[in-house]
Protein backbone atom coordinates (compact mmCIF):
# COMPACT_ATOMS: atom_id res chain seq x y z
CA UNK A 1 0.00 0.00 0.00
CA UNK A 2 1.33 3.37 -0.93
CA UNK A 3 1.06 6.39 1.24
CA UNK A 4 0.41 9.72 -0.24
CA UNK A 5 2.61 12.25 1.36
CA UNK A 6 1.50 15.76 1.99
CA UNK A 7 4.21 18.28 2.34
CA UNK A 8 4.05 22.00 2.13
CA UNK A 9 4.87 22.78 -1.42
CA UNK A 10 7.09 25.68 -2.23
CA UNK A 11 7.18 27.27 -5.60
CA UNK A 12 10.88 27.80 -5.33
CA UNK A 13 13.74 28.60 -2.96
CA UNK A 14 12.46 32.11 -2.29
CA UNK A 15 9.09 30.76 -1.34
CA UNK A 16 10.68 28.34 1.10
CA UNK A 17 12.93 31.02 2.60
CA UNK A 18 10.02 33.34 3.09
CA UNK A 19 8.14 30.59 4.83
CA UNK A 20 11.05 29.99 7.23
CA UNK A 21 11.29 33.70 7.98
CA UNK A 22 7.58 33.82 8.77
CA UNK A 23 7.76 30.72 10.86
CA UNK A 24 10.61 32.06 12.95
CA UNK A 25 9.00 35.49 13.15
CA UNK A 26 12.24 37.22 12.36
CA UNK A 27 13.02 40.56 10.81
CA UNK A 28 13.77 40.27 7.16
CA UNK A 29 16.50 42.88 7.55
CA UNK A 30 18.17 40.94 10.32
CA UNK A 31 17.89 37.32 9.29
CA UNK A 32 19.49 34.87 11.73
CA UNK A 33 21.36 33.28 8.88
CA UNK A 34 22.65 30.22 10.75
CA UNK A 35 19.19 29.19 11.97
CA UNK A 36 17.53 29.84 8.65
CA UNK A 37 20.25 28.00 6.73
CA UNK A 38 19.98 24.99 9.00
CA UNK A 39 16.22 24.87 8.63
CA UNK A 40 16.49 25.34 4.92
CA UNK A 41 18.88 22.42 4.60
CA UNK A 42 16.70 20.37 6.92
CA UNK A 43 13.81 20.90 4.60
CA UNK A 44 15.83 19.80 1.59
CA UNK A 45 16.87 16.69 3.52
CA UNK A 46 13.26 15.98 4.28
CA UNK A 47 12.36 16.26 0.63
CA UNK A 48 15.16 13.89 -0.28
CA UNK A 49 14.03 11.45 2.41
CA UNK A 50 10.55 11.56 0.93
CA UNK A 51 11.97 10.94 -2.49
CA UNK A 52 10.86 14.29 -3.76
CA UNK A 53 13.05 15.58 -6.50
CA UNK A 54 14.91 18.61 -5.27
CA UNK A 55 15.17 21.10 -8.07
CA UNK A 56 18.45 22.74 -8.92
CA UNK A 57 17.11 26.16 -7.91
CA UNK A 58 16.86 24.96 -4.32
CA UNK A 59 20.43 23.72 -4.32
CA UNK A 60 21.76 26.96 -5.70
CA UNK A 61 20.05 28.82 -2.87
CA UNK A 62 21.46 26.34 -0.37
CA UNK A 63 24.98 27.12 -1.49
CA UNK A 64 24.26 30.85 -1.41
CA UNK A 65 23.05 30.51 2.17
CA UNK A 66 26.10 28.52 3.19
CA UNK A 67 28.31 31.08 1.57
CA UNK A 68 26.65 33.92 3.46
CA UNK A 69 26.82 31.93 6.67
CA UNK A 70 30.56 31.43 6.30
CA UNK A 71 31.05 35.07 5.47
CA UNK A 72 29.21 36.02 8.64
CA UNK A 73 31.41 33.73 10.70
CA UNK A 74 34.66 35.06 9.38
CA UNK A 75 36.15 38.01 11.17
CA UNK A 76 35.83 40.87 8.77
CA UNK A 77 39.12 41.21 6.94
CA UNK A 78 38.26 44.69 5.80
CA UNK A 79 37.30 46.13 9.10
CA UNK A 80 36.68 49.78 9.00
CA UNK A 81 35.69 49.64 5.38
CA UNK A 82 32.03 49.97 4.60
CA UNK A 83 31.05 46.52 3.47
CA UNK A 84 27.57 45.48 2.64
CA UNK A 85 25.91 43.05 4.96
CA UNK A 86 26.35 39.73 3.13
CA UNK A 87 22.76 38.90 3.99
CA UNK A 88 21.56 41.57 1.62
CA UNK A 89 22.22 39.06 -1.13
CA UNK A 90 19.11 37.22 -0.08
CA UNK A 91 17.25 40.06 1.62
CA UNK A 92 16.92 42.01 -1.60
CA UNK A 93 15.37 39.30 -3.75
CA UNK A 94 13.22 38.26 -0.80
CA UNK A 95 11.83 41.75 -0.40
CA UNK A 96 11.03 41.94 -4.03
CA UNK A 97 9.46 38.52 -3.93
CA UNK A 98 7.31 39.53 -0.96
CA UNK A 99 6.00 42.56 -2.74
CA UNK A 100 5.38 40.49 -5.79
CA UNK A 101 3.26 38.09 -3.80
CA UNK A 102 1.36 40.99 -2.38
CA UNK A 103 0.61 42.27 -5.83
CA UNK A 104 -0.42 38.83 -7.06
CA UNK A 105 -2.73 38.64 -4.06
CA UNK A 106 -4.23 42.00 -4.90
CA UNK A 107 -4.76 40.95 -8.48
CA UNK A 108 -6.53 37.81 -7.36
CA UNK A 109 -8.77 39.82 -5.07
CA UNK A 110 -9.94 42.04 -7.88
CA UNK A 111 -13.25 41.28 -9.51
CA UNK A 112 -12.26 38.94 -12.28
CA UNK A 113 -14.09 38.64 -15.54
CA UNK A 114 -15.98 35.39 -15.86
CA UNK A 115 -15.34 34.62 -12.22
CA UNK A 116 -17.02 37.52 -10.47
CA UNK A 117 -18.41 39.68 -13.21
CA UNK A 118 -19.94 38.91 -16.56
CA UNK A 119 -20.49 40.85 -19.72
CA UNK A 120 -23.15 40.71 -22.36
CA UNK A 121 -22.54 37.73 -24.63
CA UNK A 122 -22.27 38.26 -28.37
CA UNK A 123 -25.74 38.20 -29.87
CA UNK A 124 -25.83 35.11 -32.09
CA UNK A 125 -28.59 36.54 -34.26
CA UNK A 126 -26.89 39.79 -34.97
CA UNK A 127 -23.60 38.16 -35.71
CA UNK A 128 -25.07 35.59 -38.04
CA UNK A 129 -26.29 38.41 -40.24
CA UNK A 130 -22.81 39.67 -40.66
CA UNK A 131 -20.86 37.01 -42.45
CA UNK A 132 -18.81 39.51 -44.35
CA UNK A 133 -15.27 40.18 -43.35
CA UNK A 134 -14.73 43.09 -41.12
CA UNK A 135 -11.53 45.05 -41.44
CA UNK A 136 -10.51 44.10 -37.94
CA UNK A 137 -9.17 40.71 -37.00
CA UNK A 138 -9.40 38.86 -33.76
CA UNK A 139 -6.26 36.74 -33.71
CA UNK A 140 -3.18 36.58 -31.56
CA UNK A 141 0.38 35.50 -31.98
CA UNK A 142 -0.15 32.41 -29.90
CA UNK A 143 -2.74 31.12 -32.34
CA UNK A 144 -0.33 31.80 -35.18
CA UNK A 145 2.45 29.94 -33.43
CA UNK A 146 0.21 26.99 -32.73
CA UNK A 147 -0.88 26.88 -36.35
CA UNK A 148 2.70 26.85 -37.51
CA UNK A 149 3.63 24.15 -35.08
CA UNK A 150 0.67 22.10 -36.26
CA UNK A 151 1.74 22.46 -39.88
CA UNK A 152 5.30 21.46 -39.17
CA UNK A 153 4.28 18.47 -37.09
CA UNK A 154 1.54 17.46 -39.47
CA UNK A 155 3.96 17.41 -42.33
CA UNK A 156 6.39 15.13 -40.56
CA UNK A 157 3.57 12.73 -39.78
CA UNK A 158 2.22 12.80 -43.32
CA UNK A 159 5.62 12.05 -44.78
CA UNK A 160 5.78 8.90 -42.75
CA UNK A 161 2.27 7.77 -43.51
CA UNK A 162 1.95 8.75 -47.11
CA UNK A 163 5.23 8.13 -48.76
CA UNK A 164 6.39 4.90 -47.28
CA UNK A 165 4.03 2.63 -49.24
CA UNK A 166 5.06 4.05 -52.60
CA UNK A 167 8.76 4.04 -51.90
CA UNK A 168 10.61 1.00 -53.14
CA UNK A 169 13.70 -0.08 -51.42
CA UNK A 170 16.43 -1.95 -53.25
CA UNK A 171 16.39 -4.61 -50.61
CA UNK A 172 12.68 -5.29 -50.96
CA UNK A 173 12.89 -5.46 -54.73
CA UNK A 174 15.91 -7.74 -54.63
CA UNK A 175 14.09 -10.05 -52.24
CA UNK A 176 11.13 -10.00 -54.56
CA UNK A 177 13.26 -11.00 -57.58
CA UNK A 178 14.94 -13.77 -55.62
CA UNK A 179 11.64 -15.16 -54.46
CA UNK A 180 10.29 -15.21 -57.99
CA UNK A 181 13.42 -16.98 -59.20
CA UNK A 182 13.14 -19.48 -56.38
CA UNK A 183 9.62 -20.23 -57.49
CA UNK A 184 10.30 -20.66 -61.17
CA UNK A 185 14.07 -21.14 -61.45
CA UNK A 186 14.33 -18.72 -64.33
CA UNK A 187 12.35 -15.80 -65.66
CA UNK A 188 12.59 -13.47 -68.61
CA UNK A 189 14.04 -10.05 -68.06
CA UNK A 190 10.89 -8.42 -69.48
CA UNK A 191 8.68 -10.21 -66.98
CA UNK A 192 10.35 -8.39 -64.14
CA UNK A 193 8.85 -5.13 -65.31
CA UNK A 194 5.36 -6.33 -66.17
CA UNK A 195 2.70 -4.43 -64.34
CA UNK A 196 5.02 -1.77 -62.99
CA UNK A 197 3.43 1.65 -63.27
CA UNK A 198 5.68 3.82 -61.26
CA UNK A 199 8.92 4.93 -62.87
CA UNK A 200 10.64 4.86 -59.51
CA UNK A 201 9.61 1.24 -59.02
CA UNK A 202 10.97 0.46 -62.46
CA UNK A 203 14.31 2.05 -61.66
CA UNK A 204 14.60 0.41 -58.29
CA UNK A 205 13.79 -2.99 -59.75
CA UNK A 206 16.49 -2.58 -62.36
CA UNK A 207 19.03 -1.42 -59.75
CA UNK A 208 18.12 -4.40 -57.59
CA UNK A 209 18.74 -6.71 -60.49
CA UNK A 210 22.13 -5.19 -61.19
CA UNK A 211 23.03 -5.63 -57.57
CA UNK A 212 21.98 -9.28 -57.64
CA UNK A 213 24.01 -9.92 -60.75
CA UNK A 214 26.98 -8.12 -59.32
CA UNK A 215 26.95 -10.25 -56.19
CA UNK A 216 26.50 -13.37 -58.24
CA UNK A 217 23.11 -14.31 -56.89
CA UNK A 218 21.50 -14.05 -60.29
CA UNK A 219 22.93 -15.07 -63.61
CA UNK A 220 21.90 -13.42 -66.84
CA UNK A 221 21.71 -15.24 -70.16
CA UNK A 222 20.97 -14.24 -73.69
CA UNK A 223 20.84 -17.27 -75.90
CA UNK A 224 21.16 -15.14 -79.03
CA UNK A 225 21.44 -11.39 -79.71
CA UNK A 226 17.76 -11.25 -80.70
CA UNK A 227 16.29 -13.46 -78.04
CA UNK A 228 14.91 -12.21 -74.71
CA UNK A 229 17.27 -11.92 -71.81
CA UNK A 230 16.79 -14.62 -69.27
CA UNK A 231 17.51 -14.58 -65.56
CA UNK A 232 18.45 -17.63 -63.56
CA UNK A 233 19.06 -18.17 -59.91
CA UNK A 234 22.63 -19.10 -59.16
CA UNK A 235 21.65 -20.51 -55.79
CA UNK A 236 19.27 -23.10 -57.09
CA UNK A 237 20.70 -25.48 -59.62
CA UNK A 238 17.94 -27.99 -59.43
CA UNK A 239 14.94 -25.70 -59.62
CA UNK A 240 13.34 -24.57 -62.84
CA UNK A 241 14.02 -25.69 -66.39
CA UNK A 242 17.24 -27.24 -67.61
CA UNK A 243 18.87 -25.74 -70.64
CA UNK A 244 22.32 -27.05 -71.42
CA UNK A 245 23.09 -24.74 -74.30
CA UNK A 246 23.07 -21.40 -72.62
CA UNK A 247 26.18 -19.29 -72.35
CA UNK A 248 26.59 -16.88 -69.46
CA UNK A 249 26.62 -13.37 -70.73
CA UNK A 250 26.29 -10.47 -68.39
CA UNK A 251 24.42 -7.50 -69.67
CA UNK A 252 24.74 -4.05 -68.35
Amino acid at each position, binding site marked *: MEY*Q*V*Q*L*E*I*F*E*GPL*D*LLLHLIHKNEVDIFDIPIATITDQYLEYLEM*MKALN*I*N*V*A*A*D*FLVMASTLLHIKSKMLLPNAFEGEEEEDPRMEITRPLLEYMHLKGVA*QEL*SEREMLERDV*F*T*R*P*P*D*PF*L*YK*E*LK*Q*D*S*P*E*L*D*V*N*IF*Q*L*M*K*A*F*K*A*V*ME*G*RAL*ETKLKFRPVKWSLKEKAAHIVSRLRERGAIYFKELFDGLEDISEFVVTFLALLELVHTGVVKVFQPSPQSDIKLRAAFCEECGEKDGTETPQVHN
Partner: protein
Amino acid sequence: MEPRPLKFIIEALLFSSDRPLSAREIQEWIGQVNASEVRSALEELRADYQQMNRSFRLQEVAGGFQFRTRSDYAPYILKMLKTTPSKLSRAALETLAIIAYKQPIVRQEIEQLRGVDVGGILRSLMEKGLIRIVGRKNVPGKPLIYGTTKRFLEVFGLKDLDSLPRLKEIKDLTSKGAEGSSSAPSGHETVPKEKDEKQEAQAPNQEG
Protein backbone atom coordinates in the same frame (compact mmCIF):
# COMPACT_ATOMS: atom_id res chain seq x y z
CA MET B 1 -23.77 37.74 1.37
CA GLU B 2 -27.33 38.79 1.95
CA PRO B 3 -29.79 37.43 -0.54
CA ARG B 4 -30.41 39.63 -3.53
CA PRO B 5 -33.90 40.50 -4.71
CA LEU B 6 -35.24 37.82 -7.00
CA LYS B 7 -35.98 40.40 -9.67
CA PHE B 8 -32.34 41.41 -9.87
CA ILE B 9 -31.05 37.88 -9.86
CA ILE B 10 -33.27 37.19 -12.84
CA GLU B 11 -32.13 40.40 -14.48
CA ALA B 12 -28.48 39.34 -14.11
CA LEU B 13 -29.24 35.98 -15.68
CA LEU B 14 -31.07 37.54 -18.60
CA PHE B 15 -28.28 40.06 -19.01
CA SER B 16 -25.59 37.44 -19.36
CA SER B 17 -27.50 34.99 -21.51
CA ASP B 18 -27.26 34.86 -25.28
CA ARG B 19 -30.66 33.25 -25.69
CA PRO B 20 -34.16 33.65 -24.33
CA LEU B 21 -34.63 32.10 -20.88
CA SER B 22 -37.78 30.35 -19.82
CA ALA B 23 -39.33 30.86 -16.40
CA ARG B 24 -38.82 27.19 -15.68
CA GLU B 25 -35.08 27.30 -16.42
CA ILE B 26 -34.68 30.36 -14.26
CA GLN B 27 -36.55 28.69 -11.46
CA GLU B 28 -34.21 25.70 -11.62
CA TRP B 29 -31.03 27.78 -11.52
CA ILE B 30 -32.14 29.91 -8.64
CA GLY B 31 -33.78 27.16 -6.64
CA GLN B 32 -36.02 27.64 -3.62
CA VAL B 33 -38.46 29.80 -5.52
CA ASN B 34 -41.72 28.72 -7.04
CA ALA B 35 -42.84 29.18 -10.59
CA SER B 36 -45.31 31.93 -9.89
CA GLU B 37 -42.69 34.00 -8.05
CA VAL B 38 -40.41 33.77 -11.06
CA ARG B 39 -43.25 34.61 -13.38
CA SER B 40 -44.27 37.69 -11.50
CA ALA B 41 -40.66 38.87 -11.13
CA LEU B 42 -40.27 38.56 -14.88
CA GLU B 43 -43.44 40.59 -15.44
CA GLU B 44 -42.22 43.20 -13.01
CA LEU B 45 -38.89 43.44 -14.82
CA ARG B 46 -40.61 43.79 -18.13
CA ALA B 47 -42.80 46.58 -16.76
CA ASP B 48 -39.70 48.28 -15.29
CA TYR B 49 -37.98 48.48 -18.62
CA GLN B 50 -41.14 49.40 -20.43
CA GLN B 51 -41.55 52.32 -18.11
CA MET B 52 -37.91 53.39 -18.20
CA ASN B 53 -38.18 53.58 -21.96
CA ARG B 54 -34.51 52.89 -22.50
CA SER B 55 -32.79 51.64 -25.66
CA PHE B 56 -33.49 48.03 -24.81
CA ARG B 57 -36.36 46.17 -23.22
CA LEU B 58 -37.29 42.78 -21.93
CA GLN B 59 -39.22 40.95 -24.57
CA GLU B 60 -41.17 37.74 -24.38
CA VAL B 61 -40.10 35.67 -27.35
CA ALA B 62 -40.41 32.04 -28.33
CA GLY B 63 -39.18 30.01 -25.44
CA GLY B 64 -38.83 32.74 -22.88
CA PHE B 65 -37.61 36.21 -22.09
CA GLN B 66 -34.74 38.11 -23.60
CA PHE B 67 -33.28 41.61 -23.48
CA ARG B 68 -33.39 43.15 -26.92
CA THR B 69 -32.50 46.57 -28.19
CA ARG B 70 -35.34 48.57 -29.72
CA SER B 71 -35.40 48.54 -33.49
CA ASP B 72 -34.80 52.31 -33.62
CA TYR B 73 -31.20 51.63 -32.71
CA ALA B 74 -30.55 48.91 -35.27
CA PRO B 75 -28.75 51.13 -37.79
CA TYR B 76 -26.16 52.14 -35.19
CA ILE B 77 -25.72 48.59 -34.00
CA LEU B 78 -25.26 47.32 -37.53
CA LYS B 79 -22.61 49.90 -38.09
CA MET B 80 -20.85 48.74 -34.99
CA LEU B 81 -21.09 45.06 -35.86
CA LYS B 82 -19.52 45.66 -39.23
CA THR B 83 -16.36 46.71 -37.50
CA THR B 84 -16.38 43.86 -35.05
CA PRO B 85 -13.15 41.91 -35.35
CA SER B 86 -13.56 38.75 -37.37
CA LYS B 87 -11.68 35.57 -36.74
CA LEU B 88 -9.40 33.71 -39.11
CA SER B 89 -10.20 30.15 -40.11
CA ARG B 90 -7.76 27.44 -39.19
CA ALA B 91 -6.75 27.03 -42.83
CA ALA B 92 -6.14 30.75 -43.15
CA LEU B 93 -4.17 30.83 -39.93
CA GLU B 94 -1.99 27.92 -41.01
CA THR B 95 -1.33 29.43 -44.40
CA LEU B 96 -0.52 32.75 -42.83
CA ALA B 97 1.79 31.06 -40.35
CA ILE B 98 3.69 29.34 -43.17
CA ILE B 99 4.08 32.59 -45.06
CA ALA B 100 5.14 34.44 -41.93
CA TYR B 101 7.81 31.93 -41.03
CA LYS B 102 9.01 30.88 -44.46
CA GLN B 103 8.81 34.11 -46.41
CA PRO B 104 9.65 34.84 -49.14
CA ILE B 105 7.73 31.81 -50.36
CA VAL B 106 5.90 30.75 -53.51
CA ARG B 107 2.45 29.21 -53.60
CA GLN B 108 3.72 25.77 -54.55
CA GLU B 109 5.89 25.59 -51.45
CA ILE B 110 2.95 26.57 -49.26
CA GLU B 111 0.84 23.89 -50.87
CA GLN B 112 3.54 21.31 -50.28
CA LEU B 113 3.47 22.15 -46.60
CA ARG B 114 -0.29 22.29 -46.22
CA GLY B 115 -1.00 19.46 -48.65
CA VAL B 116 -3.92 21.31 -50.24
CA ASP B 117 -4.64 24.06 -52.71
CA VAL B 118 -4.33 27.49 -51.12
CA GLY B 119 -5.41 29.75 -53.99
CA GLY B 120 -8.58 30.97 -52.32
CA ILE B 121 -6.93 31.43 -48.97
CA LEU B 122 -4.11 33.49 -50.47
CA ARG B 123 -6.63 35.77 -52.11
CA SER B 124 -8.56 36.23 -48.88
CA LEU B 125 -5.39 36.88 -46.87
CA MET B 126 -4.41 39.42 -49.45
CA GLU B 127 -7.82 41.09 -49.24
CA LYS B 128 -7.40 41.32 -45.49
CA GLY B 129 -4.10 43.04 -46.11
CA LEU B 130 -2.12 40.43 -44.19
CA ILE B 131 0.05 39.22 -47.05
CA ARG B 132 1.36 40.73 -50.26
CA ILE B 133 3.20 39.79 -53.41
CA VAL B 134 6.83 40.67 -53.03
CA GLY B 135 8.06 39.58 -56.45
CA ARG B 136 8.44 36.71 -58.89
CA LYS B 137 10.75 33.79 -58.56
CA ASN B 138 13.22 33.40 -61.38
CA VAL B 139 12.29 29.82 -62.27
CA PRO B 140 10.15 28.44 -65.11
CA GLY B 141 6.63 29.80 -64.81
CA LYS B 142 7.89 32.78 -62.81
CA PRO B 143 5.69 32.06 -59.79
CA LEU B 144 4.62 34.87 -57.46
CA ILE B 145 6.46 35.23 -54.20
CA TYR B 146 4.49 36.05 -51.05
CA GLY B 147 5.39 37.80 -47.82
CA THR B 148 3.61 39.41 -44.89
CA THR B 149 2.63 43.05 -44.63
CA LYS B 150 3.01 45.80 -42.09
CA ARG B 151 -0.62 45.24 -41.17
CA PHE B 152 0.27 41.67 -40.30
CA LEU B 153 2.69 43.00 -37.69
CA GLU B 154 0.05 45.37 -36.38
CA VAL B 155 -2.62 42.70 -36.08
CA PHE B 156 -0.32 40.40 -34.14
CA GLY B 157 1.20 43.18 -32.11
CA LEU B 158 4.71 42.53 -33.34
CA LYS B 159 7.39 45.15 -33.52
CA ASP B 160 9.05 43.49 -36.49
CA LEU B 161 9.34 40.09 -38.16
CA ASP B 162 12.27 39.33 -35.95
CA SER B 163 9.90 39.27 -33.00
CA LEU B 164 8.13 36.21 -34.34
CA PRO B 165 8.93 33.38 -31.97
CA ARG B 166 11.21 30.76 -33.49
CA LEU B 167 10.04 27.19 -33.85
CA LYS B 168 12.17 26.10 -30.94
CA GLU B 169 10.74 28.84 -28.77
CA ILE B 170 7.27 27.86 -29.85
CA LYS B 171 7.93 24.31 -28.79
CA ASP B 172 9.30 25.60 -25.52
CA LEU B 173 6.15 27.51 -24.86
CA THR B 174 3.60 25.21 -26.34
CA SER B 175 4.66 21.86 -25.06
CA LYS B 176 7.01 22.31 -22.14
CA GLY B 177 5.40 22.44 -18.78
CA ALA B 178 2.24 20.91 -20.09
CA GLU B 179 2.18 18.79 -16.96
CA GLY B 180 3.12 21.66 -14.73
CA SER B 181 0.67 23.16 -12.31
CA SER B 182 0.57 26.35 -14.29
CA SER B 183 -1.25 24.72 -17.10
CA ALA B 184 -3.43 22.42 -15.10
CA PRO B 185 -6.94 22.26 -16.50
CA SER B 186 -8.25 25.70 -15.92
CA GLY B 187 -11.40 24.47 -14.30
CA HIS B 188 -9.42 23.05 -11.45
CA GLU B 189 -7.10 25.90 -10.89
CA THR B 190 -7.78 27.93 -7.89
CA VAL B 191 -6.42 31.14 -6.64
CA PRO B 192 -5.22 30.17 -3.22
CA LYS B 193 -5.93 32.89 -0.74
CA GLU B 194 -3.68 31.07 1.62
CA LYS B 195 -1.08 28.54 0.96
CA ASP B 196 -3.00 25.89 2.83
CA GLU B 197 -5.10 25.34 -0.21
CA LYS B 198 -2.31 23.53 -1.90
CA GLN B 199 -2.82 19.93 -1.22
CA GLU B 200 -1.08 17.71 -3.61
CA ALA B 201 2.31 16.36 -2.85
CA GLN B 202 4.48 17.57 -5.65
CA ALA B 203 8.05 18.35 -6.29
CA PRO B 204 8.59 21.89 -5.16
CA ASN B 205 9.67 23.14 -8.50
CA GLN B 206 6.66 22.16 -10.48
CA GLU B 207 7.39 24.21 -13.50
CA GLY B 208 10.96 23.14 -13.82
